[in-house]
Protein backbone atom coordinates (compact mmCIF):
# COMPACT_ATOMS: atom_id res chain seq x y z
CA UNK A 1 0.00 0.00 0.00
CA UNK A 2 1.19 3.51 -0.84
CA UNK A 3 -0.04 6.60 0.99
CA UNK A 4 0.87 10.18 0.24
CA UNK A 5 0.75 12.45 3.32
CA UNK A 6 0.92 16.18 3.84
CA UNK A 7 1.21 18.35 6.95
CA UNK A 8 0.98 22.16 6.95
CA UNK A 9 -0.47 23.05 10.35
CA UNK A 10 2.66 24.85 11.63
CA UNK A 11 5.34 27.03 10.05
CA UNK A 12 6.79 23.82 8.64
CA UNK A 13 5.63 22.20 5.44
CA UNK A 14 6.15 18.46 5.17
CA UNK A 15 5.21 15.69 2.76
CA UNK A 16 5.76 11.95 3.06
CA UNK A 17 5.28 8.76 1.14
CA UNK A 18 4.42 5.63 3.12
CA UNK A 19 5.14 2.50 1.12
CA UNK A 20 4.39 -0.75 2.95
CA UNK A 21 5.83 0.63 6.15
CA UNK A 22 8.81 2.47 4.69
CA UNK A 23 8.55 6.24 4.97
CA UNK A 24 10.31 8.86 2.87
CA UNK A 25 9.73 12.41 3.99
CA UNK A 26 10.60 15.98 3.09
CA UNK A 27 10.20 18.83 5.54
CA UNK A 28 10.99 22.51 5.21
CA UNK A 29 10.58 25.60 7.36
CA UNK A 30 8.38 27.76 5.13
CA UNK A 31 6.76 30.30 7.46
CA UNK A 32 3.45 31.12 5.76
CA UNK A 33 4.46 30.04 2.28
CA UNK A 34 2.88 26.58 2.30
CA UNK A 35 0.83 27.40 -0.76
CA UNK A 36 3.97 28.09 -2.76
CA UNK A 37 5.83 25.01 -1.55
CA UNK A 38 3.42 22.16 -0.90
CA UNK A 39 2.64 20.84 -4.38
CA UNK A 40 6.20 21.37 -5.58
CA UNK A 41 7.51 19.35 -2.60
CA UNK A 42 4.94 16.61 -3.27
CA UNK A 43 5.99 16.53 -6.90
CA UNK A 44 9.67 16.13 -6.05
CA UNK A 45 8.87 13.43 -3.47
CA UNK A 46 6.86 11.48 -6.01
CA UNK A 47 9.45 11.90 -8.75
CA UNK A 48 12.19 10.65 -6.43
CA UNK A 49 10.07 7.63 -5.56
CA UNK A 50 9.39 6.80 -9.19
CA UNK A 51 5.64 6.79 -8.55
CA UNK A 52 2.91 9.08 -9.82
CA UNK A 53 -0.13 10.31 -7.93
CA UNK A 54 -2.18 7.69 -9.78
CA UNK A 55 -0.11 4.93 -8.15
CA UNK A 56 -1.18 5.97 -4.65
CA UNK A 57 -3.75 4.09 -2.59
CA UNK A 58 -4.77 7.02 -0.43
CA UNK A 59 -4.10 10.57 0.72
CA UNK A 60 -3.37 11.44 4.35
CA UNK A 61 -3.32 14.91 5.85
CA UNK A 62 -2.74 16.62 9.17
CA UNK A 63 -6.27 17.79 9.97
CA UNK A 64 -5.34 20.03 12.88
CA UNK A 65 -5.49 21.52 15.36
CA UNK A 66 -3.05 24.18 14.25
CA UNK A 67 -2.92 27.26 12.06
CA UNK A 68 -6.42 27.62 10.57
CA UNK A 69 -5.09 28.67 7.20
CA UNK A 70 -2.40 26.00 7.20
CA UNK A 71 -4.83 23.24 8.08
CA UNK A 72 -7.24 24.40 5.37
CA UNK A 73 -4.44 24.28 2.81
CA UNK A 74 -3.81 20.65 3.80
CA UNK A 75 -7.53 19.88 3.53
CA UNK A 76 -7.98 21.70 0.23
CA UNK A 77 -4.97 19.97 -1.32
CA UNK A 78 -6.02 16.57 0.07
CA UNK A 79 -9.48 17.12 -1.41
CA UNK A 80 -8.16 18.10 -4.83
CA UNK A 81 -5.59 15.31 -5.03
CA UNK A 82 -8.05 12.68 -3.84
CA UNK A 83 -10.80 13.84 -6.18
CA UNK A 84 -8.46 14.01 -9.17
CA UNK A 85 -6.80 10.66 -8.50
CA UNK A 86 -10.01 8.98 -7.31
CA UNK A 87 -8.67 8.16 -3.87
CA UNK A 88 -9.96 8.15 -0.33
CA UNK A 89 -8.51 10.28 2.44
CA UNK A 90 -7.62 9.91 6.11
CA UNK A 91 -7.16 12.90 8.38
CA UNK A 92 -4.78 12.60 11.32
CA UNK A 93 -4.82 14.75 14.44
CA UNK A 94 -1.63 16.81 14.65
CA UNK A 95 -1.38 16.09 18.39
CA UNK A 96 -1.43 12.36 17.76
CA UNK A 97 1.23 12.87 15.08
CA UNK A 98 3.39 14.49 17.77
CA UNK A 99 2.87 11.46 20.02
CA UNK A 100 3.68 9.08 17.18
CA UNK A 101 6.89 10.90 16.27
CA UNK A 102 8.12 11.05 19.88
CA UNK A 103 9.05 7.40 20.06
CA UNK A 104 7.57 7.28 23.59
CA UNK A 105 4.59 5.41 25.01
CA UNK A 106 2.99 8.11 27.16
CA UNK A 107 2.81 11.52 25.58
CA UNK A 108 1.21 14.83 26.46
CA UNK A 109 1.11 16.68 23.14
CA UNK A 110 0.57 20.44 23.17
CA UNK A 111 0.63 23.03 20.41
CA UNK A 112 0.60 26.79 20.81
CA UNK A 113 -2.92 28.00 20.02
CA UNK A 114 -2.04 31.72 20.47
CA UNK A 115 -4.27 34.04 22.51
CA UNK A 116 -2.83 32.50 25.70
CA UNK A 117 -4.18 29.03 24.98
CA UNK A 118 -2.89 25.67 23.84
CA UNK A 119 -4.24 22.67 21.97
CA UNK A 120 -3.60 19.67 24.17
CA UNK A 121 -4.16 15.92 24.22
CA UNK A 122 -2.57 12.99 26.03
CA UNK A 123 -1.96 9.59 24.48
CA UNK A 124 -0.90 6.23 25.83
CA UNK A 125 0.17 3.33 23.68
CA UNK A 126 -1.62 0.08 24.42
CA UNK A 127 -0.53 -2.94 22.40
CA UNK A 128 0.83 -0.74 19.64
CA UNK A 129 -2.21 1.51 19.39
CA UNK A 130 -2.52 5.07 20.63
CA UNK A 131 -5.39 5.73 23.00
CA UNK A 132 -6.33 9.32 23.74
CA UNK A 133 -6.57 9.49 27.52
CA UNK A 134 -7.22 13.21 27.16
CA UNK A 135 -9.10 13.98 23.98
CA UNK A 136 -7.80 16.95 21.96
CA UNK A 137 -8.96 20.16 23.58
CA UNK A 138 -8.35 23.92 23.67
CA UNK A 139 -7.38 25.24 27.10
CA UNK A 140 -5.16 27.52 29.09
CA UNK A 141 -1.96 25.81 30.20
CA UNK A 142 -2.80 26.31 33.87
CA UNK A 143 -6.20 24.64 33.33
CA UNK A 144 -4.84 21.68 31.31
CA UNK A 145 -6.67 18.43 32.18
CA UNK A 146 -4.89 16.15 34.66
CA UNK A 147 -3.23 12.88 33.74
CA UNK A 148 -2.58 9.92 36.01
CA UNK A 149 0.75 8.24 36.61
CA UNK A 150 4.28 9.33 35.93
CA UNK A 151 6.91 9.30 33.19
CA UNK A 152 4.91 11.37 30.74
CA UNK A 153 6.73 12.90 27.80
CA UNK A 154 5.76 16.43 26.79
CA UNK A 155 5.94 17.25 23.08
CA UNK A 156 5.22 20.25 20.91
CA UNK A 157 5.30 24.05 20.80
CA UNK A 158 2.81 24.28 23.65
CA UNK A 159 5.71 23.35 25.94
CA UNK A 160 7.85 26.12 24.47
CA UNK A 161 5.33 28.92 24.87
CA UNK A 162 3.74 27.70 28.10
CA UNK A 163 6.51 25.50 29.42
CA UNK A 164 6.54 26.90 32.94
CA UNK A 165 2.76 26.69 33.37
CA UNK A 166 2.61 23.13 32.03
CA UNK A 167 5.51 22.05 34.21
CA UNK A 168 3.76 23.56 37.21
CA UNK A 169 0.58 21.76 36.17
CA UNK A 170 2.09 18.29 35.68
CA UNK A 171 5.04 18.60 38.08
CA UNK A 172 6.93 15.33 38.49
CA UNK A 173 4.51 13.46 36.25
CA UNK A 174 6.43 15.01 33.37
CA UNK A 175 9.53 12.90 32.89
CA UNK A 176 10.88 14.42 29.71
CA UNK A 177 10.09 17.14 27.23
CA UNK A 178 10.69 18.09 23.60
CA UNK A 179 9.31 21.56 23.02
CA UNK A 180 10.81 21.73 19.54
CA UNK A 181 8.83 18.75 18.19
CA UNK A 182 6.53 19.58 15.27
CA UNK A 183 3.84 17.44 13.68
CA UNK A 184 5.19 16.06 10.43
CA UNK A 185 3.90 14.18 7.42
CA UNK A 186 5.90 11.02 8.18
CA UNK A 187 4.03 10.45 11.43
CA UNK A 188 0.76 11.46 9.74
CA UNK A 189 1.40 8.82 7.08
CA UNK A 190 2.14 6.10 9.64
CA UNK A 191 -1.05 6.79 11.58
CA UNK A 192 -3.11 7.11 8.41
CA UNK A 193 -1.80 3.75 7.18
CA UNK A 194 -3.44 2.14 10.21
CA UNK A 195 -6.75 3.86 9.37
CA UNK A 196 -6.58 2.80 5.73
CA UNK A 197 -5.85 -0.78 6.81
CA UNK A 198 -8.87 -0.71 9.14
CA UNK A 199 -11.09 0.60 6.34
CA UNK A 200 -11.59 3.94 8.09
CA UNK A 201 -10.64 6.11 5.09
CA UNK A 202 -13.33 8.50 3.87
CA UNK A 203 -14.47 10.33 0.75
CA UNK A 204 -12.41 13.28 -0.53
CA UNK A 205 -15.10 15.80 0.46
CA UNK A 206 -14.65 14.70 4.09
CA UNK A 207 -11.08 16.05 4.17
CA UNK A 208 -12.05 18.74 6.68
CA UNK A 209 -10.21 20.57 9.46
CA UNK A 210 -10.29 19.92 13.19
CA UNK A 211 -10.23 23.49 14.50
CA UNK A 212 -11.09 23.06 18.20
CA UNK A 213 -11.39 26.85 18.46
CA UNK A 214 -14.87 27.43 17.12
CA UNK A 215 -15.77 30.81 18.53
CA UNK A 216 -13.99 33.17 16.15
CA UNK A 217 -16.33 36.18 16.11
CA UNK A 218 -19.19 37.70 18.06
CA UNK A 219 -22.67 37.78 16.61
CA UNK A 220 -24.40 41.15 16.49
CA UNK A 221 -26.68 39.92 19.27
CA UNK A 222 -23.69 39.10 21.48
CA UNK A 223 -21.97 42.50 21.27
Amino acid at each position, binding site marked *: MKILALETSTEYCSVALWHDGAVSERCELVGQ*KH*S*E*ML*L*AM*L*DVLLQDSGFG*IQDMDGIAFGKGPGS*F*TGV*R*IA*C*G*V*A*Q*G*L*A*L*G*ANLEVAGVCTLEALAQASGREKVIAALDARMGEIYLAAYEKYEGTWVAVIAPCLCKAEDAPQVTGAAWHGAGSGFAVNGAALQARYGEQLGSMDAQAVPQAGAVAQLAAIEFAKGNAVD*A*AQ*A*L*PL*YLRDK*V*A*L*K*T*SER
Partner: protein
Amino acid sequence: MKLILGIESSCDETGIALYHTERGLLAHTLHSQIAMHNEYGGVVPELASRDHVRYALPLVREVMKQASCTLGDIDTIAFTQGPGLSGALLVGASVACSLAYALNIPTIAVHHLEGHLLSPLLSDPAPEFPFVALLVSGGHTQLMRVDGVGLYTLLGETLDDAAGEAFDKSAKLLGLDYPGGALLSKLAQHGSPGRFKLPRPMLHSGDLDFSFSGLKTAILLVVQKNAQDEQTRADIARAAQDAIVEVLVKKSLSALKLTGLKQLVIAGGVGANQALRAQLNQAAQQHSFKVFYPDLEFCTDNGAMIAFAGALRMQQHEAQRDYRFNVKPRWDLQQFSQAD
Protein backbone atom coordinates in the same frame (compact mmCIF):
# COMPACT_ATOMS: atom_id res chain seq x y z
CA MET B 1 -12.13 23.26 -28.15
CA LYS B 2 -11.46 23.32 -24.45
CA LEU B 3 -13.34 22.65 -21.24
CA ILE B 4 -12.52 24.93 -18.33
CA LEU B 5 -13.48 24.42 -14.69
CA GLY B 6 -13.79 27.75 -12.87
CA ILE B 7 -13.46 28.16 -9.09
CA GLU B 8 -14.33 31.39 -7.29
CA SER B 9 -13.84 31.78 -3.52
CA SER B 10 -12.63 35.34 -2.98
CA CYS B 11 -15.25 36.45 -0.47
CA ASP B 12 -18.55 35.05 0.77
CA GLU B 13 -19.66 32.97 -2.20
CA THR B 14 -18.32 29.65 -3.43
CA GLY B 15 -18.92 29.60 -7.19
CA ILE B 16 -18.04 26.70 -9.48
CA ALA B 17 -18.67 26.49 -13.23
CA LEU B 18 -17.81 24.60 -16.40
CA TYR B 19 -17.26 26.63 -19.55
CA HIS B 20 -16.70 25.13 -22.98
CA THR B 21 -14.94 27.29 -25.57
CA GLU B 22 -17.43 26.28 -28.27
CA ARG B 23 -20.55 25.21 -26.42
CA GLY B 24 -20.45 28.06 -23.91
CA LEU B 25 -21.39 27.78 -20.25
CA LEU B 26 -22.31 24.15 -19.52
CA ALA B 27 -23.06 24.36 -15.81
CA HIS B 28 -22.58 26.62 -12.85
CA THR B 29 -23.48 26.53 -9.21
CA LEU B 30 -23.15 28.82 -6.25
CA HIS B 31 -23.22 28.58 -2.50
CA SER B 32 -23.84 31.92 -0.83
CA GLN B 33 -22.82 32.51 2.78
CA ILE B 34 -24.95 35.63 3.18
CA ALA B 35 -27.29 34.05 5.72
CA MET B 36 -24.36 32.92 7.89
CA HIS B 37 -22.62 36.33 7.92
CA ASN B 38 -25.93 38.11 8.49
CA GLU B 39 -25.83 37.19 12.19
CA TYR B 40 -22.45 38.91 12.47
CA GLY B 41 -23.43 42.12 10.67
CA GLY B 42 -20.76 41.61 8.03
CA VAL B 43 -18.43 39.07 6.46
CA VAL B 44 -16.25 37.28 9.03
CA PRO B 45 -13.19 36.20 7.03
CA GLU B 46 -12.39 33.12 9.11
CA LEU B 47 -15.97 31.85 8.87
CA ALA B 48 -15.96 32.51 5.13
CA SER B 49 -12.87 30.33 4.74
CA ARG B 50 -14.39 27.59 6.88
CA ASP B 51 -17.44 27.53 4.65
CA HIS B 52 -15.49 27.46 1.38
CA VAL B 53 -13.55 24.37 2.42
CA ARG B 54 -16.81 22.53 3.14
CA TYR B 55 -18.53 23.44 -0.12
CA ALA B 56 -15.87 23.62 -2.83
CA LEU B 57 -15.60 19.91 -3.55
CA PRO B 58 -19.31 19.01 -3.44
CA LEU B 59 -19.99 21.93 -5.81
CA VAL B 60 -17.30 20.72 -8.24
CA ARG B 61 -19.03 17.35 -8.30
CA GLU B 62 -22.38 19.05 -8.79
CA VAL B 63 -21.31 20.95 -11.93
CA MET B 64 -19.69 17.82 -13.38
CA LYS B 65 -22.99 16.03 -12.88
CA GLN B 66 -25.07 18.91 -14.25
CA ALA B 67 -22.94 19.00 -17.39
CA SER B 68 -22.69 15.19 -17.67
CA CYS B 69 -18.92 15.51 -17.85
CA THR B 70 -16.17 13.57 -16.13
CA LEU B 71 -13.11 15.08 -14.49
CA GLY B 72 -11.00 13.65 -17.30
CA ASP B 73 -12.82 15.94 -19.76
CA ILE B 74 -11.45 19.09 -18.09
CA ASP B 75 -8.61 20.76 -19.98
CA THR B 76 -7.76 23.59 -17.59
CA ILE B 77 -8.76 24.81 -14.15
CA ALA B 78 -9.23 28.56 -13.67
CA PHE B 79 -9.32 29.94 -10.14
CA THR B 80 -9.58 33.36 -8.54
CA GLN B 81 -6.11 34.33 -7.35
CA GLY B 82 -7.18 37.73 -6.00
CA PRO B 83 -8.07 40.29 -4.93
CA GLY B 84 -10.13 39.15 -1.96
CA LEU B 85 -9.88 37.57 1.50
CA SER B 86 -6.62 35.67 1.66
CA GLY B 87 -7.89 32.68 3.62
CA ALA B 88 -10.91 32.35 1.36
CA LEU B 89 -8.82 32.66 -1.80
CA LEU B 90 -6.44 29.98 -0.51
CA VAL B 91 -9.23 27.41 -0.28
CA GLY B 92 -10.20 27.79 -3.94
CA ALA B 93 -6.56 27.96 -5.00
CA SER B 94 -5.55 24.83 -3.08
CA VAL B 95 -8.45 22.76 -4.42
CA ALA B 96 -7.93 24.08 -7.97
CA CYS B 97 -4.18 23.51 -8.10
CA SER B 98 -4.13 20.13 -6.40
CA LEU B 99 -6.96 18.87 -8.60
CA ALA B 100 -5.10 20.13 -11.66
CA TYR B 101 -1.93 18.41 -10.43
CA ALA B 102 -3.74 15.11 -9.96
CA LEU B 103 -5.40 15.41 -13.39
CA ASN B 104 -2.10 16.51 -14.96
CA ILE B 105 -3.64 19.61 -16.51
CA PRO B 106 -2.63 23.29 -16.30
CA THR B 107 -4.17 26.06 -14.21
CA ILE B 108 -4.95 29.69 -14.94
CA ALA B 109 -4.95 32.27 -12.16
CA VAL B 110 -7.75 34.76 -12.78
CA HIS B 111 -8.11 38.30 -11.47
CA HIS B 112 -11.50 38.53 -9.76
CA LEU B 113 -12.27 41.93 -11.28
CA GLU B 114 -11.33 40.74 -14.74
CA GLY B 115 -13.94 38.05 -14.23
CA HIS B 116 -16.54 40.71 -13.43
CA LEU B 117 -15.31 42.95 -16.24
CA LEU B 118 -15.70 40.25 -18.88
CA SER B 119 -18.90 38.71 -17.49
CA PRO B 120 -21.23 40.82 -19.74
CA LEU B 121 -19.63 38.99 -22.69
CA LEU B 122 -21.45 35.88 -21.44
CA SER B 123 -24.77 37.57 -22.22
CA ASP B 124 -26.54 38.07 -25.52
CA PRO B 125 -26.22 40.67 -26.97
CA ALA B 126 -22.64 41.06 -25.82
CA PRO B 127 -20.58 44.25 -26.07
CA GLU B 128 -17.61 44.43 -28.42
CA PHE B 129 -14.19 45.81 -27.55
CA PRO B 130 -13.43 48.60 -26.83
CA PHE B 131 -15.88 49.63 -24.11
CA VAL B 132 -16.07 51.49 -20.83
CA ALA B 133 -16.77 49.30 -17.81
CA LEU B 134 -18.21 50.43 -14.50
CA LEU B 135 -17.27 47.86 -11.85
CA VAL B 136 -19.54 48.34 -8.87
CA SER B 137 -19.73 45.94 -5.97
CA GLY B 138 -19.40 45.79 -2.22
CA GLY B 139 -15.63 45.83 -2.53
CA HIS B 140 -14.95 47.84 -5.67
CA THR B 141 -15.97 50.92 -7.60
CA GLN B 142 -13.94 51.54 -10.72
CA LEU B 143 -14.30 52.90 -14.22
CA MET B 144 -12.10 51.08 -16.70
CA ARG B 145 -11.43 51.39 -20.39
CA VAL B 146 -11.38 47.89 -21.86
CA ASP B 147 -9.65 47.48 -25.23
CA GLY B 148 -9.48 43.71 -25.19
CA VAL B 149 -8.79 40.76 -22.93
CA GLY B 150 -6.03 41.93 -20.61
CA LEU B 151 -6.06 45.47 -21.95
CA TYR B 152 -7.46 47.56 -19.14
CA THR B 153 -6.90 51.21 -18.34
CA LEU B 154 -8.11 52.57 -15.03
CA LEU B 155 -10.07 55.78 -15.61
CA GLY B 156 -11.17 56.40 -12.05
CA GLU B 157 -11.97 54.63 -8.80
CA THR B 158 -13.29 55.18 -5.33
CA LEU B 159 -10.94 56.86 -2.90
CA ASP B 160 -12.64 55.26 0.09
CA ASP B 161 -15.82 53.17 0.37
CA ALA B 162 -17.13 51.15 -2.56
CA ALA B 163 -20.62 51.96 -3.86
CA GLY B 164 -21.97 48.64 -2.61
CA GLU B 165 -20.44 49.34 0.78
CA ALA B 166 -22.22 52.72 0.78
CA PHE B 167 -25.49 50.92 0.08
CA ASP B 168 -24.87 48.39 2.85
CA LYS B 169 -23.72 50.96 5.42
CA SER B 170 -26.67 53.25 4.67
CA ALA B 171 -28.95 50.26 5.10
CA LYS B 172 -27.36 49.46 8.44
CA LEU B 173 -28.03 53.02 9.63
CA LEU B 174 -31.67 52.44 8.73
CA GLY B 175 -31.68 49.27 10.81
CA LEU B 176 -31.79 46.88 7.87
CA ASP B 177 -30.18 43.43 8.01
CA TYR B 178 -26.74 42.81 6.51
CA PRO B 179 -26.13 42.97 3.58
CA GLY B 180 -28.75 45.64 3.30
CA GLY B 181 -28.08 47.12 -0.13
CA ALA B 182 -30.86 45.21 -1.84
CA LEU B 183 -33.23 45.80 1.11
CA LEU B 184 -32.48 49.52 0.96
CA SER B 185 -33.44 49.60 -2.72
CA LYS B 186 -36.66 47.84 -1.90
CA LEU B 187 -37.43 50.34 0.84
CA ALA B 188 -36.51 53.22 -1.48
CA GLN B 189 -39.31 52.20 -3.88
CA HIS B 190 -41.79 53.59 -1.35
CA GLY B 191 -39.80 56.74 -0.70
CA SER B 192 -40.54 60.22 -2.02
CA PRO B 193 -37.70 61.75 -3.98
CA GLY B 194 -36.32 65.07 -2.80
CA ARG B 195 -37.58 65.08 0.79
CA PHE B 196 -34.01 64.72 2.04
CA LYS B 197 -31.05 66.28 0.30
CA LEU B 198 -27.84 64.30 0.52
CA PRO B 199 -24.46 65.32 -0.88
CA ARG B 200 -23.23 64.01 -4.23
CA PRO B 201 -19.57 63.47 -3.28
CA MET B 202 -17.06 64.45 -5.96
CA LEU B 203 -19.75 64.92 -8.58
CA HIS B 204 -17.96 67.96 -9.93
CA SER B 205 -14.41 66.89 -9.10
CA GLY B 206 -13.49 67.03 -12.76
CA ASP B 207 -12.03 63.53 -12.68
CA LEU B 208 -13.54 60.06 -12.68
CA ASP B 209 -12.84 59.21 -9.05
CA PHE B 210 -15.52 58.49 -6.46
CA SER B 211 -15.89 58.99 -2.73
CA PHE B 212 -18.73 57.50 -0.73
CA SER B 213 -17.51 57.59 2.86
CA GLY B 214 -18.98 61.06 3.54
CA LEU B 215 -22.40 59.89 2.50
CA LYS B 216 -22.89 57.63 5.51
CA THR B 217 -22.09 60.50 7.86
CA ALA B 218 -24.71 62.64 6.10
CA ILE B 219 -27.22 59.81 6.34
CA LEU B 220 -26.44 59.25 10.02
CA LEU B 221 -27.26 62.92 10.68
CA VAL B 222 -30.54 62.67 8.79
CA VAL B 223 -31.45 59.48 10.64
CA GLN B 224 -30.69 61.07 14.01
CA LYS B 225 -32.65 64.24 13.28
CA ASN B 226 -35.84 62.60 12.05
CA ALA B 227 -38.53 60.35 13.41
CA GLN B 228 -38.17 56.70 12.42
CA ASP B 229 -41.62 56.13 10.95
CA GLU B 230 -41.82 53.84 7.95
CA GLN B 231 -42.31 56.69 5.45
CA THR B 232 -39.32 58.63 6.75
CA ARG B 233 -37.11 55.57 6.54
CA ALA B 234 -38.29 54.98 2.98
CA ASP B 235 -37.61 58.63 2.11
CA ILE B 236 -34.09 58.41 3.54
CA ALA B 237 -33.49 55.18 1.65
CA ARG B 238 -34.68 56.90 -1.50
CA ALA B 239 -32.34 59.84 -0.89
CA ALA B 240 -29.38 57.51 -0.27
CA GLN B 241 -30.04 55.50 -3.41
CA ASP B 242 -30.59 58.62 -5.52
CA ALA B 243 -27.29 60.08 -4.33
CA ILE B 244 -25.26 56.93 -5.05
CA VAL B 245 -26.94 56.25 -8.38
CA GLU B 246 -26.61 59.82 -9.61
CA VAL B 247 -22.86 59.84 -8.97
CA LEU B 248 -22.41 56.48 -10.67
CA VAL B 249 -24.42 57.56 -13.72
CA LYS B 250 -22.81 60.98 -14.10
CA LYS B 251 -19.28 59.62 -13.79
CA SER B 252 -20.05 56.86 -16.28
CA LEU B 253 -21.29 59.46 -18.76
CA SER B 254 -18.13 61.49 -18.22
CA ALA B 255 -16.04 58.38 -18.87
CA LEU B 256 -17.85 57.77 -22.16
CA LYS B 257 -17.35 61.39 -23.15
CA LEU B 258 -13.68 61.34 -22.23
CA THR B 259 -12.93 58.13 -24.14
CA GLY B 260 -15.31 58.81 -27.02
CA LEU B 261 -16.60 55.25 -26.67
CA LYS B 262 -20.24 54.31 -27.23
CA GLN B 263 -20.58 51.18 -25.12
CA LEU B 264 -20.90 51.02 -21.35
CA VAL B 265 -20.68 47.73 -19.48
CA ILE B 266 -21.90 47.42 -15.90
CA ALA B 267 -20.38 44.68 -13.79
CA GLY B 268 -20.49 43.68 -10.12
CA GLY B 269 -23.23 43.22 -7.57
CA VAL B 270 -24.54 46.81 -7.61
CA GLY B 271 -25.24 46.26 -11.31
CA ALA B 272 -28.34 44.40 -10.18
CA ASN B 273 -29.79 47.64 -8.76
CA GLN B 274 -32.93 48.48 -10.71
CA ALA B 275 -32.77 52.25 -10.11
CA LEU B 276 -29.24 52.31 -11.49
CA ARG B 277 -30.33 50.30 -14.52
CA ALA B 278 -33.34 52.54 -15.16
CA GLN B 279 -31.28 55.72 -15.06
CA LEU B 280 -28.52 54.27 -17.20
CA ASN B 281 -31.05 53.07 -19.77
CA GLN B 282 -32.57 56.53 -19.87
CA ALA B 283 -29.15 58.16 -20.24
CA ALA B 284 -28.24 55.68 -22.97
CA GLN B 285 -31.26 56.79 -25.00
CA GLN B 286 -30.56 60.47 -24.45
CA HIS B 287 -26.87 60.30 -25.24
CA SER B 288 -27.07 57.48 -27.80
CA PHE B 289 -24.76 54.92 -26.32
CA LYS B 290 -25.38 51.27 -25.54
CA VAL B 291 -25.38 49.87 -22.04
CA PHE B 292 -24.79 46.20 -21.24
CA TYR B 293 -25.46 44.31 -18.04
CA PRO B 294 -24.44 40.81 -17.08
CA ASP B 295 -27.36 38.46 -16.45
CA LEU B 296 -28.51 38.98 -12.87
CA GLU B 297 -27.01 35.68 -11.69
CA PHE B 298 -23.60 36.84 -12.95
CA CYS B 299 -23.72 40.26 -11.28
CA THR B 300 -22.69 38.84 -7.92
CA ASP B 301 -19.58 36.72 -7.46
CA ASN B 302 -19.80 33.51 -9.45
CA GLY B 303 -17.71 30.73 -10.93
CA ALA B 304 -18.94 31.25 -14.49
CA MET B 305 -17.09 34.53 -14.92
CA ILE B 306 -13.88 32.91 -13.64
CA ALA B 307 -14.17 29.95 -16.00
CA PHE B 308 -14.99 32.35 -18.85
CA ALA B 309 -12.13 34.76 -18.10
CA GLY B 310 -9.88 31.69 -17.87
CA ALA B 311 -11.06 30.55 -21.29
CA LEU B 312 -10.28 33.95 -22.83
CA ARG B 313 -6.93 34.08 -21.08
CA MET B 314 -6.08 30.60 -22.34
CA GLN B 315 -6.16 31.87 -25.90
CA GLN B 316 -3.14 33.92 -24.88
CA HIS B 317 -1.29 30.74 -23.78
CA GLU B 318 -1.21 31.58 -20.14
CA ALA B 319 -2.05 28.24 -18.61
CA GLN B 320 0.76 27.08 -16.39
CA ARG B 321 1.88 23.95 -14.63
CA ASP B 322 4.07 25.02 -11.78
CA TYR B 323 1.31 24.51 -9.20
CA ARG B 324 2.49 27.16 -6.79
CA PHE B 325 -0.78 28.54 -5.60
CA ASN B 326 0.10 31.73 -3.81
CA VAL B 327 -2.82 34.16 -3.72
CA LYS B 328 -2.94 37.92 -4.13
CA PRO B 329 -5.38 39.46 -1.63
CA ARG B 330 -4.46 42.90 -2.98
CA TRP B 331 -3.98 42.97 -6.71
CA ASP B 332 -4.33 45.97 -8.96
CA LEU B 333 -6.08 45.09 -12.21
CA GLN B 334 -4.21 47.70 -14.18
CA GLN B 335 -0.82 46.42 -12.97
CA PHE B 336 -1.96 42.97 -13.94
CA SER B 337 -2.92 44.30 -17.35
CA GLN B 338 0.40 46.07 -17.89
CA ALA B 339 2.37 43.01 -16.80
CA ASP B 340 1.18 41.14 -19.90
